[in-house]
């Protein structure tokens, strides 16, 4: 009995700490929003960053941080955090709208890419696609097991299997498309101008200059460089200090 009491005491204590932490994060978030409203965009960005340092990762935090950076004339970081917000909350109208808007201020046009069949794959996050596909998979197997055990050929069981199978395929396709797009990491150039070199050293030839906000796929990572694939098909190497991974 004593043991049980101790267990519940510790659990309550942990819950209280967690709740207090969450409450503090909400307070900081609101304070940052207030600074933004007062046009103190740098101050707002610092508070949002502080939340990130504390381990908070929500689409709203990324979205607001992107807005603060855009107002501070840091287009690259704005795009970076909007892309992170989009990853956590695909299909969010506000995120998509701001992403389109901010991308108009980049020097390199048309650099934003979308997942394949975005109208479909943007409906859920990768985790949500996986969760619902797993549930349907479980249900489908459960129905098949019932069919095997009871040797039932009733219409209910048969139609249930078909329905669960189709839904499972639908969700599995969504999961696969989303996964195949997300498995290749994306990056954004944060420097005003970044040289895209032909190799991962300073003395390699500069193929072209990418500008702040240009997005790319990260093919490989070396100590100081990312190997990147630009939207126009050009491959090259960009210094890590001039870019960031989404």
């Amino acid at each position: 009995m004593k043991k049980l009491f101790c267990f519940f005491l510790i659990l309550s204590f942990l819950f209280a700490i967690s709740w207090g932490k969450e409450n503090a994060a909400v307070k900081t978030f609101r304070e940052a929003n207030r600074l933004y409203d007062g046009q103190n965009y740098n101050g707002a960005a610092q508070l949002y960053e502080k939340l990130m340092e504390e381990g908070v990762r929500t689409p709203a935090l990324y979205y607001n941080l992107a807005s603060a950076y855009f107002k501070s004339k840091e287009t690259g970081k704005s795009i970076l955090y909007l892309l992170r917000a989009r990853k956590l909350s695909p299909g969010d109208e506000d995120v998509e709208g701001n992403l389109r808007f901010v991308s108009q201020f980049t020097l390199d046009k048309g650099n934003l890419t979308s997942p394949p069949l975005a109208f479909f794959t943007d409906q859920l996050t990768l985790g949500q696609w996986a969760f619902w596909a797993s549930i349907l998979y479980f249900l489908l197997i459960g129905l098949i097991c019932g069919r095997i055990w009871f040797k039932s050929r009733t219409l209910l069981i048969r139609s249930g299997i078909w329905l669960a199978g189709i839904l499972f395929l639908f969700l599995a396709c969504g999961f696969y498309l989303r996964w195949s797009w997300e498995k290749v990491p994306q990056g954004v150039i944060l420097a005003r101008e970044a040289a895209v070199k032909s190799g991962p050293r300073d003395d390699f030839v500069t193929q072209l200059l990418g500008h702040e906000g240009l997005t790319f796929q990260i093919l490989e990572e070396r100590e100081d460089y990312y190997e990147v694939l630009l939207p126009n098909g050009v491959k090259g190497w960009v210094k890590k200090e001039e870019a960031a991974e989404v």
Partner: protein
Amino acid sequence: MKKAFFLSLAVFLFFLAAAVAQDVNFTAAVDKDKLEMGDQLTLSLVVSGNVQRIGDPKLKNIGDFAVYASGRSQNITFSNGVVTSTTQFNYVLVPKKVGTFSIGPAELQIGGKTLTTASIMVTVLPSGSVPKTTAPPPTETEVREGLKSVFVSASVDRSKVFVSEQVTYTMKFYQAVNLFDNPEYTPPSVVGFWKEDLPQPPSHFEMVGGRRYRVSEAKIALFPTAAGSQTIGEATVKCKIEDFESYFNRDPFSLDLDQFFNRGARERVLRTSPLNLEVLPLPENNQPDDFTGAVGKYQMRVDWNKKTTEVNQPVTAKVTIWGTGNVKSLAEPKITAPPNFRTFLSASSERVTREGNKIGGGKIFEISFVPREPGSFELPAVAFSYFDPANRKYVKLKGAPLNLTVTGTRELAGGYSGVTQKELSVRQSDLRYLKKELGGESVNFVGSPGFWLLQGLPLILLGATVVLRRVRDKEESDVSYFRSKRASKMVKKGLKEIFAASSLPAVEYFSRLQKMLLDYLGDRYNVAAWGMTKNEIAALLEANTVGEEIKSSLLELLDLTDRARFSGWQPTRVERNQALAQAEEVIRTLEGSR
């Protein structure tokens, strides 16, 4: 053979030397040395001599004159075995200010030599200070008296026109005598006009002053380019007419071949009078914004080549404008495309017609619109405005607008080399507002224990179901196995029931005990145990290698139950319990021997 070669060479060198030795004259002359502001003079540079190729002369020290080249003419004559050419370069000079100016010298390069003309002094007076000296047209008396065997006249179809409106200039050459060769016509200088040649009508006959003249016409369509008083210069016709006096005046012993071949010919240079036109400016009232200076009467058709396109793929409007007017000077229609489009004139072609001495025709413009981003857009109606001089009003023509669907993604600027995007989306002009709630963090389900559990568990479940179903199927298909397996379950249940029924009469109690034992034997060995004799049961147990002790105990127990059932024996409670315990022992032993 050698001799013939050297002879030929000598002859060639002789002619070459003769040709080089021939003098070449280069002179300059003006048609007037005094003129007023707004007037113009013609500077003629004449090169004569045995010259085959002549380049363009260079004019130096033109003073404050605007210079317009107005043509070049050449005349070649053969005289005394010598070919002589006379080439005349004409320039129209328009003074820019009042004063006395020196024109020239002009230079010409011929055969490595530089020929130079003398300078000419010209005085430019203020406008209106020089009395007009226009040649009077021939009077009827002159014509009747035969003084005018040839004459020229010039006219325009109207004396007051709008800027860019067509005026038709006609020069008529009247001849009442035969000509020795084709007349040489020099068109008038038309500074301040856009000029288009018109087809020459066939010559015809006219009666003037009772004399029959053959009339040749030259027509030009002129489009004034600026408002104000404009002058069409004089045209000249040079011709050779019959001169009977020369037949009698010539030296009969002269060896002048030129005189021989041109006997009876007299050269005449005829000049038309300059014509003044009043050019009206286009009205500024109600002038459309898209007016580009077209004057005449036009129609327009607009054809779009597609309604759907991709980003960066052009959609083209073919704009056809046709009618009467100076089609060559038609500018492309002004079009204001949406900001996310690039617009350019991709092609244009024209066709000029001269029907009924009216310049007209058609011009086709192909205007391409290149979308920069996907979406649905309305490309504006192509509009074209012109001034109709007949009705003195502006007319605006309009094509149909295009609802265009653009697919694809936004274009990537070539080379990332600092191309600035100038157009911003008109749909969103600022960031969307902040999110008010921090929201919850989403757990990354992929790769979590729950994820793998949900992947693995169904497989385990499926495997277990398949295995258990197979076991069940085997049981259900093998009767002996099923009965054998069921035997122990049933006997345990039977023992419990008998234990619970200890208060029953002896007959009933022992009947149940016997039934339970026989059912057990039947299921255990898959036989019909009911009705078997003691010997048969003993044989069955022996066949299944049951121990002697157990066999005796079981047979003894069966005897006991028979005794209780049929002999009226009333066993005590202890005896009943002993029998039940014995039955339990037998069954336990048999179960243990499986």
